[in-house]
Every structure is written in C-alpha cells, then in structure tokens.
C-alpha cells in the first residue's frame, strides 16, 4: 500500500490531516488563523459576559451567566491547546490582549478586525445591561450554532474533535439565552426589540464577506464547506423563527 497522493489533492477530496507534521505551509497559516479567531472571540465573549453576571436579576440568571463566562474561557483554552502543537506560546497568548476592552457603543467597526486581536467585530461592542446581554447571547449564540456546523467538519481532525465536544455546550448557551429572553419578552418587549435592533446587524457582519475569495482557498483545504452567504441566510431564518416563537 505504498500508493500515495499529493496532499492538496487529498484535502480537496475530503481527506483529513491528523498532526502538525503532515500539514502543508499554507494550510498551517489558515488553520492557525481560524483557531486564533475562535480563541480570541471566546476569550472576548467570556470577558464581556463576566460583567453581565452582576446585571443578572436573580440567582438562576446569575448561574447561567457565570456558566457561560466559565465555559467560553474553557473552550478558548481547548482550542489554544491545539495551537500549542504548532508552537504557539500559550502563556503569552492568553495575556496578549485586554479581552474585556470595548469600543464606544455607537462606533461603527464594520467587519474589520481591530485592536490587534482577531475576535469577531461584534465582540468589540459594550453590553449595557441584562436585557442587552441576553439578546447578544441569543443572537450570537444562534450564529455560533450555525458556524459550528462548519467547524465540526474542519479537515484537521484534532481540532474537529475539540469542536465536536464544544458544540453541544455552545448550543446550551444559546438555549439558556432563549429561556431568559422569553421571560424578558413577556415583561419588557420594547427593550428587547431595541436591543435586537442594535445587535442583529453587528452579529450578521461576523459571517464575513459575501463572495469571499479566501473562502475558495479554505474550501480547497477542507477548512470550510459552506459559503458565507448560505450560513448567513440560515442564521437569519433561524433568528426569525426563534424570535417569532417568543413573540418578538
């Protein structure tokens, strides 16, 4: 069985890579970029949610917010440990940025990465209170659920496995948010709607450029399978359905 094939051809046909040693240079760069974007986003999300624990109106909500804060940091750590196999200095990486830093509420960042880290741009905006925190968690949580259908299929097996472990817990974060939002919708639907109007566009930006050229490269490497447009449409449909179900 000495028959072998070119590694790019293998990837294009759906092949899976299993160790840093069998990863080509360009694949390595894109894989690390994908992982650091996830790690930075989780750390920024965790840091942002930490403050929301004190906005929580009751013990149940306080526990939910604490759990989300804890688990997002844990997910960041798991992916960072895959980066470490490629040489990333994890101790330095964790302290590289101020993960709690936020811009002004009304600034417009568009889709650009700012402040030196690779977090999704939506995670640069500040949360203003409990309703705001719940709404962001629901909208971004549903987006993460859609993104997870991509991430759990990435062609680097050790990372795909981490994402398969993480996915159900991320889904639970969104569910916790929806339970909270249902209570808010019953008491203060106007505040919920205002917050949805603020966050919806900003979360949508996180799906990336439409007709992205980088997507083609990532698809060839088996790091992506579904175009940004399709994922965005899937998320929009999901948001409409879930919000309608609770009267928003």
């Amino acid at each position: 069985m000495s028959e072998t094939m070119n590694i790019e051809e293998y990837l294009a046909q759906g092949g899976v890579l299993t160790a840093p040693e069998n990863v080509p240079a360009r694949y390595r760069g894109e894989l690390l970029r994908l992982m650091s974007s996830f790690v930075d986003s989780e750390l920024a999300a965790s840091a942002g949610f930490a403050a929301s624990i004190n906005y929580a109106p009751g013990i149940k909500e306080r526990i939910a917010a604490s759990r989300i804060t804890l688990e997002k940091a844990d997910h960041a750590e798991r992916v960072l440990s895959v980066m470490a196999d490629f040489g990333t200095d994890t101790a330095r990486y964790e302290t590289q940025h101020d993960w709690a830093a936020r811009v002004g509420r009304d600034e417009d960042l568009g889709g650009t990465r700012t402040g030196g880290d690779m977090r999704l741009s939506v995670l640069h905006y500040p949360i203003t209170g409990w309703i705001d925190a719940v709404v962001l968690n629901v909208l971004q949580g549903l987006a993460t659920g859609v993104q997870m259908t991509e991430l759990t299929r990435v062609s680097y097996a050790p990372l795909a496995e981490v994402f398969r472990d993480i996915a159900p817990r991320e889904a639970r974060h969104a569910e916790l948010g929806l339970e909270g939002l249902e209570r808010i919708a019953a008491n203060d639907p106007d505040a919920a709607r205002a917050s949805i109007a603020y966050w919806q566009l900003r979360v949508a930006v996180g799906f990336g450029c439409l007709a992205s050229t980088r997507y083609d490269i990532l698809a060839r490497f088996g790091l992506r399978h579904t175009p940004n447009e399709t994922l965005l449409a899937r998320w929009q449909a999901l948001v409409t359905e879930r919000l309608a179900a609770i009267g928003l």
Partner: protein
Amino acid sequence: MARFHPLKVTDVRRETRDAVVVTLAPRDEDRALFDFTQGQYLTFRRDFDGEELRRSYSICAGLDEGCLKVGIKRVDGGAFSTWANENLAPGDEIDAMPPMGKFYTPIEAGAEKQYLGFAGGSGITPLLSIIKTVLAREPGSQFTLVYANRQINTIMFREELDDLKNLYLGRFSVIHVLEQEGQEIDLFTGRIDADKMTALFQHWLDAKSIDTAFICGPEPMMLAIAGSLKEHGLTEAQIKFELFASGQHGRAKARAVSRDAIVPGAGTAATVTLDGATRSFEMARQGETILDAAIANNMDAPYSCKAGVCSTCRCKVIEGEVEMAVNHALEDYEVRAGYVLSCQAYPLSERVVVSYDE
C-alpha cells in the same frame, strides 16, 4: 514548547525484511512524561550531515506491556528510516518528544463495543497498540481488523496478530487483504477501494453494529474507506483517522545562502509568494515588517497576534537577510531552515524573497 528527552534503545527486533521494532526506555526522571495513550506517536530528531531531521512513528505497544515500542518501516530514500533499520542498536540513545496524538477513544472497562480497524502497511503500528489495549482493558468489546499489504512477507506483526486471535478467541478477527497475492476468497485480493468496501460490507462487516472505526494508512486508502463508512451510516465522530507517515514532509532543504551583501540603505526590494502568486514591491528597511508590507500590497497573508507568539504568520526566507524582533513560537531548527515570523521580520538586505507556500 515541546522538549526532547533522550530514550535508551533496549532492543531492536527485525520484524520483516524492511521493518524493525525498536524498544525504548526513558530516563527515570522522564518516566511520567512518556506515559502514553494507545494509538499515540513519538517524534524523534537526529542530525544528518549537519541538518536536523524529525520523524514521527507510532507506538505499537499496548498500555499493559510496560514499555515503549515503535515500528519503523524503511522508506525508499528515507534517511531516518534507513538509518533506524540499518544502524540502530541496543545501547544507543535517541532524542524524542513525549507521546502525542489523538488517535484513540477513551477506554471504559465495562464497555461492550464493536471496533473496526483498517490498516495499510505500517499503518498497523498504532492499531496494534489500540487492539492490544482494548482487548485487555475492555473485556466486553470486540475488534475486527482489515489489514492491507502488498504481499504476505511484508505483513508486519503477522505472528503477534495470530497470537492475539488465539488469546482473545471470538473477540478479535483479522481480514488480510493482499495486493499481489491471490487468496482463496477473491474479495481479499487487490487494493481496498470503494468497490471492495461495498463488498466487505455486504459479506463480512455489519455497519450498524460498529461503534468506532479507526483508519491508518496512505491517503487514497483513507479517502476510500472514510467515504464508504459514511455511506454506510457512520458519522464523522465515529471515524478516527491517523494519516500515514508518508504524509510527512520530505527532507527539509537547508537555508539558501544569502547572496546579497548587507548594505545600509533605506529601501528593500521585496518579493513575496502566497498561494502560488508572486508579487514584488519596494518596502522600507526600517519600521515596517514583511507582514505589514505584504498586507499593504493587498496580499491576504495569514496572521493573528502580531506579537511573535502564535506563529500564524510563519513564512520562509528564500533569499536575502531578515531579522526578527522577537520570536516566542518558532523552534531553533525551524529558524535554521529559514522560517521567520513575518510579523516580526524586518529586512536587512537590499533584496528579500519570502514565501508563505513552503
């Protein structure tokens, strides 16, 4: 950062004409570091004519053997595997990193699982470790191995597998598929491709009963088997892959010697290759990194932390001299081979040629 530790060679056994099994022992103080999980591999390093080569080989010992063993098959033109097959002897020392790899599922003593393994050639090494461990530590589980080889005399661990069949009667079965030798059953002759997989599922394997499948072999075989397993209803999470050693990079070329004199000056002519496209531009000699210059010239170069920590922006210097401000991510051998972190790399010479594709 992963570190190397010396292992003492305690035994070298010839397994087939072109494969050896090497038994290794860590120093007492390193013993805990070299505790392994079934299916993991060791990465070795050795200097060949002044150039460091690193090669990974799977551990073939089960957890209950109390030692480290790797199987090394000689690859044509492979400096490391040839050296191991011809020169390695008891008493030698060799540097290795602690065991790595995720080619396993957790052992549960009470489990009653059906495992299916596919090995191509020396892809048997991690599977042997898994098979021995699972059979010993999960008394309720069963394992079926489909093992592809060119011919009978190249089959690694043939006797050991036979012994395991006898030891674990009814719980372990092996289907040998031989490329060049006819067998009583036609199905077991040839290569494992999509058709053969379909036939195996028709006559020999029950897809529905399988809990986990392990595949280790060359790329085309992995594709054919994974495709067929999915067609027969297995999910991605049920299939564990380990890409064969052939996927490792060839011999790293030594860094090109600079032909440019390092002369003082304000500008550098930079040439950058990314995704097969090459772009040339002028950049400042000071105050601008190669990464920033590439991005300023509309190249979608990969980066993340921009602080020399994550290594996303790694590229290779083909010609010219550059200097890194900091480096927390690349190891010495990568730097010697010409790799730099482009977010930290400032040009020193009049001309610099770098590539993100190598």
